[in-house]
């Protein structure tokens, strides 16, 4: 036989044999998956953030169908997703409120002082480990973007040296909450619009020394808020289980650390102290 025929037969034979082996294997050995898993995966948002605790949306879909996992674990999908899952699987939907991440610090570089020039690796945990961080305030946002780097949807930006969450883009997966070495980020209900953007538990004079817009513990807001803002030591903290609508709290806060979403920055007009 001439080489052309031999080689054609050889390659053709190998290809045919492989194809036969593969189709036999596919037919007799393939794992049959519950068809509902693929359907459930389609109902999920598909961002693979891992916020539910499973390795991506496909894994969560599997857990929902096979292991009766909770339907409300998907933060990006929110209540709509939970209801769609419940409707598809014929289960009762539990209530789930949409939440967003919030950085509880508004002391950007125009307001807060830095007590040292840090030029190590750009990572908040590393900065924190270097003599407690370069920020004057030991509670405030360091601004080295550790949270922004873990965010699967790029909803966090660093503005003037502090992290700011884009409320519309946030999917509340909670990765930034875990990444922040100063525990500044909280998941809050998306419906809440008035926040105390400070985490400093120091006394008023100590706060004033390092930040122009930190909570000084004056308690004015607690009197105006009908129990929705309470004091934790020298820090006003919003209780998100109670409604907080009184916008007077925003106007009356002497250090302008109570802010309303979407409202212009009130402190911008006041001179830096």
């Amino acid at each position, binding site marked *: 036989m001439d080489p052309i025929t031999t080689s054609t037969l050889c390659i053709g034979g*190998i290809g045919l044999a492989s194809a036969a082996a593969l189709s036999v294997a596919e037919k007799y050995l393939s794992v049959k998956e519950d068809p509902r898993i693929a359907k459930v995966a389609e109902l999920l948002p598909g961002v693979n953030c891992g916020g539910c605790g499973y390795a991506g949306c496909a894994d969560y879909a599997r857990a929902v169908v096979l292991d009766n996992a909770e339907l409300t674990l998907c933060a990006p999908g929110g209540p709509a997703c939970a209801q769609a899952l419940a409707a598809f699987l014929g289960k009762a939907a539990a209530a789930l409120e949409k939440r967003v991440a919030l950085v509880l610090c508004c002391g950007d570089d125009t307001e807060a002082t830095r007590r040292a020039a840090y030029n190590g690796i750009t990572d908040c945990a590393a900065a924190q480990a270097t003599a407690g961080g370069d920020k004057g305030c030991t509670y405030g946002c360091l601004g080295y973007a550790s949270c922004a780097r873990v965010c699967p949807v790029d909803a966090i930006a660093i503005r003037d040296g502090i992290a700011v969450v884009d409320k519309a883009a946030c999917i509340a997966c909670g990765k930034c909450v875990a990444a922040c070495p100063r525990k500044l980020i909280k998941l809050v209900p998306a419906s809440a619009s008035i926040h105390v953007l400070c985490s400093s538990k120091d006394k008023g004079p100590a706060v004033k020394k390092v930040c122009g817009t930190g909570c000084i513990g004056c308690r004015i807001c607690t009197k105006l808020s009908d129990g929705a803002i309470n004091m934790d030591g020298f820090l006003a903290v919003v209780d998100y289980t109670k409604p907080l609508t009184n916008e007077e709290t925003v106007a009356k806060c002497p250090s302008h650390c109570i802010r309303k979403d979407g409202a212009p920055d009130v402190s911008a007009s006041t001179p830096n102290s």
Partner: protein
Amino acid sequence: MEYLLLVISAILVNNFVLSRFLGICPFLGVSKKIHTALGMSGAVVFVMTIASAVTWALQKYLLEPRGLDKFLQTLTFILVIASLVQLIDIVMKRFAPPLHAALGIFLPLITTNCAVLGAAVLNMKEGFGFFKSVLFGFSAALGFALALLIFTGLREKIDRADPPRCFKGVAISLVTAGLLSLAFMGFSGLVK
């Protein structure tokens, strides 16, 4: 002793990635996180060992007797390795789900990887016997895994550093890969 030399030479001296420059795409592509690098390394070790064994048999009993090994080698090897890996993927999913979950996506990704093909072709060029072929494939894959894991470790650190702007991203990665390759040149002369 001979086998030991073969192993050391394949892992350190003639490292597949850093001296022979094979398998550069996974080397640069999946070296962002240690976790994925580990999965990739596992898959490469697995595929390369099996591919070495199968291609040896193919060469010995099919190609050589018909005088086809001079020009049909590459085509045949790619075809057989690719379908073999697909087959293993199916079988593994059925009988060893944990292993399948660990290697996962990387298994089909490397079916036609140049490092895998390179190991098979080199085996034939050196005229290794069956056992030596498998050993060579296995240790070459270990060398690949070693280079990949070292490089991933370096890149994870570099990601957090603050290089000059013109070096950010791929540029600094390529410089690092070059330096790593230079470092591995230090092993040359260890085995003749």
